Each structure stands twice: as C-alpha cells, then as structure tokens.
C-alpha cells in the first residue's frame, strides 16, 4: 500500500476482554512506532521497533500492553484485560529507518472503545 494501514478502524470491546490492533507499515520501512492519542490530547509514545526487536518500550503503561513485530513488517499491539481508561485512538507510524530526524508517517489510527 501507499501508506501506513491500520486495522480495524474502530473496535468496541467489553471491559476485561483482550484486543489486538494491527499495523501494516509502508513497505521497506524498518522503524515502526505505536502511539496512543486520548481525546483532545497529542499522541503519546508507546513503543518503537527497529526491525523485529522492540528498541524502546518505555511508553507502555503497564504489563497489560504488549506489541510484536515478528517478521520486521506487520506489527500487532495487544491489550489484555482491557479497562475503560484504555479507550483512545491508537496510532501507528513508520519511517525509513530509526535514525533521528527521519520523517514518521502515521496511519489513520484505530479507535478503541472499552465499554
């Protein structure tokens, strides 16, 4: 695809359930980022992958959140035992490489609603 693709666009889940959010980065981009955007706020960093490995997961709020990128392309953000406070738009971004000052391209996001 031409851009970063995220699926699903919207996800409604019940409190306590498990969810997976998928990100397809731009082909050839080795760096991949997950951010979380709460209503009326700027995106907040969650995790950064360089290739298959998580180079920086300092933004993950707790151990209910986990992300993988097994083949260095598609990434999945996994949230266990969802809570109402997890409701937000989850954004994925990719860049050609993880070098500093490299433009990050964002997907349209997945809006997660926990009821």
């Amino acid at each position, binding site marked *: 695809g031409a851009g970063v693709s995220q699926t699903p666009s919207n996800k409604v889940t019940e409190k306590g359930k498990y969810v997976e959010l998928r990100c397809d980065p731009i082909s050839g981009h080795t760096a991949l980022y997950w951010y979380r955007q709460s209503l009326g706020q*700027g995106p907040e960093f969650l995790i950064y992958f360089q290739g298959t490995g998580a180079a920086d997961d300092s933004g993950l709020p707790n151990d209910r959140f986990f992300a993988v990128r097994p083949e260095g392309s598609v990434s999945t953000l996994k949230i266990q035992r969802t809570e109402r406070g997890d409701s937000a738009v989850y954004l994925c971004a990719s860049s050609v490489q993880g070098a500093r000052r490299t433009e990050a391209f964002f997907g349209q996001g997945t809006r997660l609603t926990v009821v």
Partner: protein
Amino acid sequence: QQQVKQSPQSLIVQKGGISIINCAYENTAFDYFPWYQQFPGKGPALLIAIRPDVSEKKEGRFTISFNKSAKQFSLHIMDSQPGDSATYFCAASGEYGNKLVFGAGTILRVKS
C-alpha cells in the same frame, strides 16, 4: 510529564490572516522539532520541521521560527485558508530513534 507545552488550545483566524501557534520545551537534548497537521479521523501528517542550528525555516505559507536560548518555537501560517482548519501539533525528539514528544495540540479554525 509534559515536556512540550503548546498554546493556544484553540484559535480562530479570518481568511487571509496569519495563524500563530507557540510551543516551549524543557529537554535541552531535543534536536528536531516537527509540526504535524491532523484532520478529523486521520492520522497526523508532517507539515514542516526544523533543526536547532537554524532560526527560521519557510515552506510555502508555513514558517517555523526557533529560539534556542528561550527553548521556544512557533508555527506561522500566512494567508490562512479555510482548508487549513485542522488540529496542529508541535513535537520534539532527540533521544534514541525518532520517538516524538507531542504538544497537546491547537485547534485552528479559519473563517471564510
């Protein structure tokens, strides 16, 4: 901890006017300052970015002014158009990789 403070929260400008959004940062390790534009239901898109070794960068109607000593930078949108109505985020990075720290955003409305 909010490391990038953005103001104002919202802004209304007449068509043809100048829109000005300000940001201030705390971390002196930051060395890359992009501005992103976000339309409803879309992800942020890079508008313009600056490094701290220059004081100003202009691209079309968009200009970033940077004041390293004051740790402040601003976005100026000249000849603002209704199509510029969107949310604007300043951001900064300088740590490992390209992890961005975003401001809280400014909702810009350009009245025609």
